[in-house]
């Protein structure tokens, strides 16, 4: 009951014309930032922070949070249409989203990602409102062994990213893990695989690598296949521009899966939206009745990760608002903002400034509705991009990729890295290695290594610490089950074959 009263207080704050206006500005800006690869919400919020000093503080955080979760909506657009991940958390969306676009279902993919984002975004806010303090306490139980187990669970998802050959997937994964080690080692401050290059001390930029492997590699492969070939089938009629009722039905579980995984993983300071999106994609495929179709344009394969990265935004605000602990770049800037506005972010923030917390929560409900209303009509518009002939489309993809990658660190070196990874992506396609497994290795490699070494430091080199704790033990158990799945499937198919032969 108390929550309801508080929520009403929140809506009374969020529904004032000024706050409503800035919420709208925030989500529009967020969508735009999300659509453009490279420039992310963190940089945008940092740039706009000074402008908020003269605003009412609740208004300011409503606007800036709008950019944060709004960007997660826009991130899928270029992933689906052009195979360019708009945000790092939209990498997985490329897998099935881009294939859907090639089959003329770009509208359905964009539409379902907006709907999944809305559902999961709203669940994320609900969670933030109802379970923030207990979830924050639960997240504190995550020490390095638990993160290690989470990363292993993530790695086990490689089983679901493999195409024909599991060996090729594992090889790609290992290369990804190796790439993640490039740069300065956190524990010894020594450089690894930098070849004396100052620019490699910070490691390989993730956006540069993913845009290279996905977008540039794809363009190169298509260029080779006699220029004039039709890449995209075009949807005929308006009806095909949005998801059908059957699509929505197919995605029922994906909505739930994305919402829950995204929210919980989001609340862990050491994980992040990209990990959440990979996990939910894996889970979706694991429970699917037609797992073999994933990667060829399955609508759940878009809904699950897009849901996850939106629920993550709600989850990420949990440690920030309940404990004053930022989980990532964007929340670190919001924390800086809170200090600049004169708040003292910490465990007492919600209690002492209910109007701030509840105003924000209420504005996020409104913001999610605004985003859905804004994004659905944009779907047919964006889908028109695919009508462009290839001699316009390819330069456009190259242009967007270069500008996007350059804008992340203002670094031309990153653009060259993108080119290099483009070549790698091309070769991988030619030789039938799954690019997603490489990216999975890159996403998790850093966190995996770190968590392992931290755990072993905690336990004085005793490796049993990894499995002996309840949460990490459970997660590792699930990972083991997933890794056994292909074997079980193989055995079953042999048995079926044997039975058929007998009869």
């Amino acid at each position, binding site marked *: 009951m108390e929550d309801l009263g508080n929520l009403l207080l929140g809506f009374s704050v969020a529904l004032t014309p000024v706050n409503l206006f800035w919420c709208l500005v925030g989500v529009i800006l967020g969508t735009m930032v999300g659509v453009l690869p490279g420039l992310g919400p963190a940089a945008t*919020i*940092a740039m706009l922070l000074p402008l908020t000093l003269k605003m009412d503080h609740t208004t300011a955080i409503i606007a800036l949070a709008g950019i944060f979760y709004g960007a997660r909506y826009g991130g899928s657009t270029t992933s689906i249409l052009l195979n360019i991940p708009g945000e790092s958390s939209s990498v997985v969306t490329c897998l099935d989203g881009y294939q859907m676009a090639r089959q003329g279902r770009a509208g359905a993919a964009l539409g379902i990602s907006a709907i999944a984002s809305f559902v999961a975004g709203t669940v994320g806010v609900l969670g933030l409102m109802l379970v923030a303090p207990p979830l924050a306490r639960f997240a504190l139980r995550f020490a390095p062994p638990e993160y290690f187990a989470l990363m292993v669970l993530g790695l086990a998802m490689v089983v679901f990213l493999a195409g024909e050959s599991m060996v090729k997937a594992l090889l790609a994964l290992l290369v990804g893990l190796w790439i993640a080690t490039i740069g300065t080692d956190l524990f010894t401050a020594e450089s690894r695989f930098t070849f004396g290059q100052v620019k490699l001390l910070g490691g390989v930029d993730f956006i540069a690598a993913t845009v290279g492997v996905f977008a540039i590699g794809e363009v190169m492969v298509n260029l080779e296949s006699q220029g004039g070939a039709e890449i995209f089938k075009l949807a005929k009629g308006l009806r095909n521009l949005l998801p059908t009722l059957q699509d929505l039905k197919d995605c029922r579980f994906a909505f739930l899966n994305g919402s829950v995984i995204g929210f919980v993983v989001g609340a862990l*300071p050491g994980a992040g939206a990209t990990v959440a999106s990979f996990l939910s994609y894996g889970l979706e495929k694991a429970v699917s009745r037609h797992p073999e179709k994933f990667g060829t344009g399955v609508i759940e394969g878009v809904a699950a990760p897009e849901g996850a990265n939106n629920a993550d935004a709600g989850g990420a605000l949990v440690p920030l608002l309940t404990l004053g602990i930022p*989980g990532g770049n964007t929340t670190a800037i919001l924390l800086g903002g809170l200090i600049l506005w004169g708040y003292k972010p910490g465990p007492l923030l919600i209690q002492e400034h209910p109007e701030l917390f509840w105003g924000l929560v209420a504005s996020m409900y409104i913001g999610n509705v605004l985003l859905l209303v804004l994004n659905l009509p944009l779907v047919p518009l964006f889908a028109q991009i695919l009508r462009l002939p290839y001699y316009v489309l390819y330069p456009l993809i190259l242009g967007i990729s270069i500008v996007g990658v350059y804008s992340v660190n203002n670094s031309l070196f990153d653009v060259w890295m993108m080119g290099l990874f483009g070549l790698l992506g091309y070769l991988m396609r030619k030789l039938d290695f799954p690019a997603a497994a490489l990216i999975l290795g890159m996403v998790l490699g850093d966190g995996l290594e*770190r968590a392992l070494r931290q755990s072993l*430091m905690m336990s004085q080199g005793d490796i049993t610490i990894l499995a002996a704790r309840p949460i990490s033990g459970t997660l590792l158990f699930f990972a083991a089950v997933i890794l056994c799945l292909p074997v079980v499937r193989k055995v079953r198919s042999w048995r079926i074959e044997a039975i058929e032969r007998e009869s």
Partner: protein
Amino acid sequence: MKHREILFPITIATIMVLSLSHAWSQEFKPSKQIEAVVHTGPGGGSDLLARAIAELLQKEKLISQRMQVVNKPGGGPAVAMSYLAEKKGETHTIGFFTGVWVTNPLTTAEANVTVKDLTPIVRLVLEPAVIAVKADSPYKNMQDFIEAAKKNPKKLAQSGGTITSRDNLMRLLLQKATGAQWNFISFPSGGERLSNLLGGHVQMMVIEPQEAGEQIRAGNLRVIAALTEKRLATLPNVPTIKEQGIDIPLIPQARGVVAPPGVPREVIQYWEGVFDRFEKTATWKQYLEQNQFEDGYLKGPGLSKFFDDLTVQMREVLKEAGAKVVR
């Protein structure tokens, strides 16, 4: 005719000399946007400080041009530092340094730009540090912690940044002074360091008072020592490390501004003038208070000497710690 032929070059030369001397006597004033380079991504400590200062300088009307913060992350500060070195003589670029700009080149062979290659402008901030433990832990003061660490050698742990960070250097100095030994576990983000302490997975952390403040007020953390010369105004009941009988050199965490190498004298004077006035404003004082920073204002030869002294001190501490010192 002849006259004219001679007159022309003379006139030109005169104009040139006049205009040059004019330029010499004239003060430098930025004529375009100023680029402020930071070594962290958006949301990092340097980034937040630079953005706040850019805003406050404009608010106080101390600069006439916009100051644009440019993030150059990578290799600690190495990428940002080499970027500044490449901008040799550039008058519209500055960089925000921290202590790691001094320590990083000492241990990283690839980081071939040192802070001495850049032009010192001002030191603005000194960040104090305190030692915090969980509020429900048995350690009421530094002695309790040291004794517990001695009883269980290498069983207790501290969370922190990289091994060249101040957190770890303070640990090494404390271990050397007391003979106790405990672990140091690196975490890349401040959030993870703090959540591992709050979750009870590590026992101690060297933390900035602003970061600890709210956790203390909420009863989650207890501060057992201030790593400062004098007690902190915000934590008057917490004795300094020296008061508790442990005499170790204190490593300052400094933040301030440098310029690229080889910038003209007038540019240095311009920035010193700007920050001279800025340091006295109420807005800056308020910013320092909100973040619980100490005013570390220092410029000119004093700042050069600070860099030299810190380099020598860091080299020694790192060597003693067993880190590989490359320069």
